[in-house]
């Protein structure tokens, strides 16, 4: 018989070890999955996890790691604040899109003027766009008690339609010969987020690092971070302590929306380049996995974001070299979250195996 016994205190060691164990188990399960798909599991795993960093073309893939990791980390840092407080923003994808549209919109409005002020303005607009989009579920939750999970998610679909509308209408490239999509911001020096495109460095990475540090300080040193954690652990105790739930909801959703908006802005003015229908590739959802995999801890999220970026890049390589379907990587990422959640049990409970009848 298996019995669970609650630990008097959550185990810190296991709290750090379980993400690693989950990754290992996911590799095994993923290997089985790839084998079932008729691929050599060892080759597939090596292609995904080894080749991008140490393989022959690592010089090309390594910077990609940061390119893909930056938006994931940026979004996940924001989400983790809310998740810690029990506020579930799962519409980061929508905020990411809105940040991109607003930021790109501001940039394109100035085209072709060149000025050092344009990019900072775009950053502001991107953050504001994401923030405003997240404020919708936040205000509805605060005013009417509406469920933020459903509202933020519905707004993803709305944002996707807006994106389509923008790339076909308002922001369409006037010189684009009727093709959908905006001007490419990479061809507009004042509006690009690349610091050094050849090295794969853009401002999003800088902001991701700043977000990690900021979030670390906030959660560990500041009373606001304490209040966020307290609200998540024990909402009644938080109110007794004097936390204003309204302000906390507005802050957490606003911050995560702004960060997702920033991620969208840096993506659209850098790696992606233009407003187009297929601009968003699900970073807002993958960031949820990143946030959990990183244990909602800023440093953990940084590592988890890089790992998840690795699976994206490795997945693409595997797609090209081995014909592994792209959806296999999605399944792989989903499994990772499953195993992580299942293993979470170990941090709070002891599993005891008892033989029946010895009593």
């Amino acid at each position, binding site marked *: 018989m298996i019995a669970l016994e609650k630990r008097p205190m959550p185990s810190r060691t296991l709290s750090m070890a379980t993400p690693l164990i989950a990754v290992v188990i996911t590799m095994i399960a993923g290997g089985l999955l790839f084998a079932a798909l008729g691929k050599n599991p060892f080759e597939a795993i090596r292609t995904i996890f080894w080749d991008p960093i140490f393989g022959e073309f690592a010089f090309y893939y390594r910077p990609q790691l940061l390119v893909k990791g930056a938006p994931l980390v940026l979004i996940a840092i924001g989400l983790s604040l809310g998740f810690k407080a029990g506020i579930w923003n799962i519409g980061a994808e929508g905020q990411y899109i809105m940040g991109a549209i607003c930021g790109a919109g501001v940039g394109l409005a100035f085209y072709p003027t060149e000025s050092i002020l344009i990019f900072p303005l775009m950053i502001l607009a991107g953050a504001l766009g994401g923030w405003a989009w997240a404020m919708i579920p936040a205000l509805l939750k605060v005013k009417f008690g509406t469920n933020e999970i459903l509202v933020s998610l519905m707004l993803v679909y709305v944002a996707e339609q807006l994106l389509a509308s923008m790339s076909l209408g308002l922001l369409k490239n006037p010189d684009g010969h009727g093709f959908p999509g905006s001007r490419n911001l990479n061809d507009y020096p004042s509006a690009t987020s690349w610091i050094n495109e050849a090295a794969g460095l853009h401002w999003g990475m800088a902001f991701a690092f700043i977000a990690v540090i900021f979030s670390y300080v906030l959660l560990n040193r500041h009373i606001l971070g304490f209040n966020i954690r307290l609200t998540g652990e024990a909402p009644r105790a938080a109110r007794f302590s*004097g936390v204003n739930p309204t302000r906390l909801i507005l802050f957490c959703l606003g911050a995560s929306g702004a960060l997702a908006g920033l991620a969208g802005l840096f993506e659209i003015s850098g790696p992606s380049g233009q407003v187009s229908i297929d601009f968003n590739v699900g970073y807002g959802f993958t960031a949820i996995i990143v946030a959990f995999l990183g244990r909602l801890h800023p440093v953990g999220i940084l590592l988890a974001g890089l790992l998840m970026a690795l699976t994206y890049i490795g997945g693409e390589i595997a797609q090209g070299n081995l014909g592994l379907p792209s959806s296999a990587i999605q399944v792989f990422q989903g499994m990772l979250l499953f195993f992580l959640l299942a293993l979470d049990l170990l941090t709070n409970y002891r599993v005891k195996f008892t033989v029946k009848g010895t009593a």
Partner: protein
Amino acid sequence: MTGTLLSISGLTKAYPGVVANDTVSFDIGEGEVHALLGENGAGKSTLVKMIYGLVKPDSGTMTWKGQPFTPPEPKAARAAGVAMVFQHFSLFDALNVAENVALGMEDPPQMGDLARRIREVSETYGLPLDPNRTVGDLSAGERQRVEIIRCLLQDPKLLIMDEPTSVLTPQEVEILFETLNKLKAEGTSILYISHKLEEIRTLCDHATILRLGKNVGECVPAETSARDMAELMVGDTLQTPTRTTEKKGEVVLDVSGLSLEPSNPFGTTLKNIHFTVRAGEILGLGGVAGNGQDELLAALSGETPTWPDAIKVKGNEVGNLGPNARRGLGILAAPEERLGHAAAPDMSLTENALLTGAIRENLTSNGFVNWSGTVEFAENIIKTFDVRTPGPHVAARALSGGNLQKFVVGREVLQRPEVLVVNQPTWGVDAAAAAAIRQALLDLAANGAAIIVISQDLDELMEISDRFGALNEGRLSDIRPAAGLSIDEIGLMMGGAHGMEVAHVGETEGASA
């Protein structure tokens, strides 16, 4: 008494780190009212859960009318004739009385028949109850009636009652005892769990006393003094708190016309509450649970803000201020629910010290937390209040109820409150810790704080209060000096028998026999 109904022998149940029951043995005769006596944590609840089939013993045996008795689940226990009235009610707020009763029965009749039978039984035993009412709207006493009727409908051979009087007014207790005596006369055995000695002396034929999971003695309560039983139960001679000063100062807290809608659908509305508390005074507020205690504490602590002039401290209107602003003015509070309200279960004691201590202990600057100062504060609480724990890094949930309560009360006391509001300060706490907490409250009053103690333990209130009032359905009775109040007067302040006629039981006795 004709024979033995249930015989328990050598029952043992261990949980990690604690032996809840250690070779406990006793017999319950047919038609006997048997008391199970012990402090909180003595293992009473675990023992009855084993009888009821909720928990399986590690070793030991039970026999029921001479046959081996090992109920694998409550269903089997109920089938044998065991019925249980739970301490923390096993009721469903959103369902109606009849549905609640049906859930506790093996083969409930159709809802219509069931409603009729509920009415019949409730009249027979003097426990009026409307089967169609939603349970969440009932008073604590009425909720208990639902549980009792649920049991009675199954013709139990053994009725287990876990601390039944903790939610009743003295008048309601009297009615309950009449019902129990009637059941006894009909041949039903009752296992009566309590730590209230006078009750046991009035009601029970036999008593088994548990301490730290062990059977430490048996007695015939009517022939044993309360003091002897208490010493068996506690294993020590009790210290009664000492009071030093009688001087009362200025009015510090002035509550007038406080009315408040509850925040949850089954909460209690506070209705036009008035009272004052002077410096150095302890105001005891009694009343059955669920009559507005939580709401009053929330209004005083600032969790639910109200009109500015409803609450004044030293003449300043504070009713609209939040908890932290009030803390700044010296109004501190300790809610009833330790885990989840007064303290965050998974957070360390240090973090829990910060939870209310940030303002008065200056633990933050510009919003940044001074963690070393917070650790010091937590260590100070632990040391001053003798909280048994390895250190301030331990999670709150790892502490025993009594130790956490000492921490929670100590945390507020050490912040030098001008006004302190505590709800159920010694609930579920062992006698030694309870005495320490009461002493701390008395000392604090002696140093000039105004204190409000909300409690359901009338003995406690009488012991430490200067003045006494009671909450009943969100209203506060007149406040009267505690000294010299009789139990009847207190009962009436608490709302009397809540509309039940005491004589009813006697009248219908013949009819149902």
